[in-house]
């Protein structure tokens, strides 16, 4: 994590410029340059039953907040300021949005392991595997597989990307766009999603998944291989996005 002095200097002047101008493109560039810090901190929280991809997303959110709140005039190093912000976001994730239902450790572990099993089987079979097939390969019972599938939904969903609701005009969370799922289809998605401000309030990758699943009719496995993530992760993101859409639809319908 050691920065060259020139890098540090460059970062500082960018932060100063951002503080002065509020230029969102610049903010995204700064976030992009600090992804390593977010990932590093996210990894310190692994092995606690949460998939690392989710933790990195949370950490990126913390990073984004740090960039926005950083006050260069106070003379602090950015990393000194950002680290507690990101760690705080991760801790809050575990406290508020972690396993809302107590999920036994072995089920959490099976849930994480199933990602690989489902992917491997899908490739071998050329189709989505049945539940007994998954159970046999994972050497567990059908009931355990069902429990583990359900475990992916054991999050409390409501405010995982709270900044989007705190600050509606910010638009899709740029931090998650840094995760490298660039896709030529993305622009087309953006076009279509303009039709739905609700969907546009989700992170880009989630928008993409919603679009592919519900507007294009692709299966979860197809989406998983297209985006290069596990099917279990697609499943989690779908569930979470839908819960968020509902929350927001509800919030919009509410008076005031």
């Amino acid at each position, binding site marked *: 994590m050691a920065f060259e002095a020139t890098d540090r200097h460059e970062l500082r002047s960018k932060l100063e410029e951002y503080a002065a101008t509020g230029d969102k493109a610049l903010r995204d560039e700064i976030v992009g340059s600090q992804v390593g810090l977010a990932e590093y901190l996210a990894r310190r929280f692994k092995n606690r039953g949460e998939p690392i991809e989710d933790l990195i997303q949370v950490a990126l959110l913390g990073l984004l907040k740090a960039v926005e709140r950083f006050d260069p005039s106070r003379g602090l190093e950015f990393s000194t300021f950002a680290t507690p912000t990101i760690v705080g976001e991760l801790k809050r994730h575990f406290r508020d949005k972690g396993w809302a239902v107590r999920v036994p450790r072995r089920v959490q572990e099976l849930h994480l392991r199933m990602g690989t099993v489902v992917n491997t089987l899908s490739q071998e079979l050329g189709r989505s595997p*049945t539940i007994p097939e998954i159970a046999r390969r994972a050497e567990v019972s059908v009931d355990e597989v069902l429990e583990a599938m359900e475990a992916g939904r054991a999050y409390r969903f409501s405010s995982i990307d709270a900044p989007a609701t705190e600050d509606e005009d910010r638009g899709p969370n740029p931090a998650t766009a840094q995760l490298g799922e660039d896709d030529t289809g993305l622009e087309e998605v953006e076009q279509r999603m303009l039709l739905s401000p609700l969907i546009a309030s989700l992170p880009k990758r989630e928008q993409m998944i919603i679009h592919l699943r519900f507007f294009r*009719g692709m299966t979860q496995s197809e989406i998983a291989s297209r985006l290069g993530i596990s099917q279990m992760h697609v499943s989690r993101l779908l569930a979470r996005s839908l819960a968020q859409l509902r929350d927001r639809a509800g919030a919009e319908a509410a008076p005031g």
Partner: protein
Amino acid sequence: MAGENQEPNDRGEDPAANGDVRLSVPAAPEYLRLVRLTAAGLASRLGFTFDEVEDLRIAVDELCFHLLGDGDDTPSDRPRTMDLTYAAGADYISITGSTGMSGAVPEPSELSEQILDALVDEHEVTGNGGVVTFRLKKQRES
């Protein structure tokens, strides 16, 4: 093709699968887990694939959401239970759910319709005399 090489019970040759299952739970989000788990359990007995089971779970969740009512209901307005019936055919599962609701029948959003169209073969939400009912049907692919 590896896919043809299955044992019979992977594809639902389960004689006990053809009975209805009934579930009655408090109309609260905490119980949706049971509702989904039951759907997933039955679908897996019928040989649904992982993808299909996932779709079914999302669809049930989406439809049950209409039965929960909005969070602004006063406690006395809140529906007390959701009654679900899961019926298993040879290659399909159909689920109905209903609950008492004093207010207007929730109108599924366009987005919700779009989502359900992609997930299941048939779905509807109807209201009648203070009872809201949803129905869905999902067919196994092959």
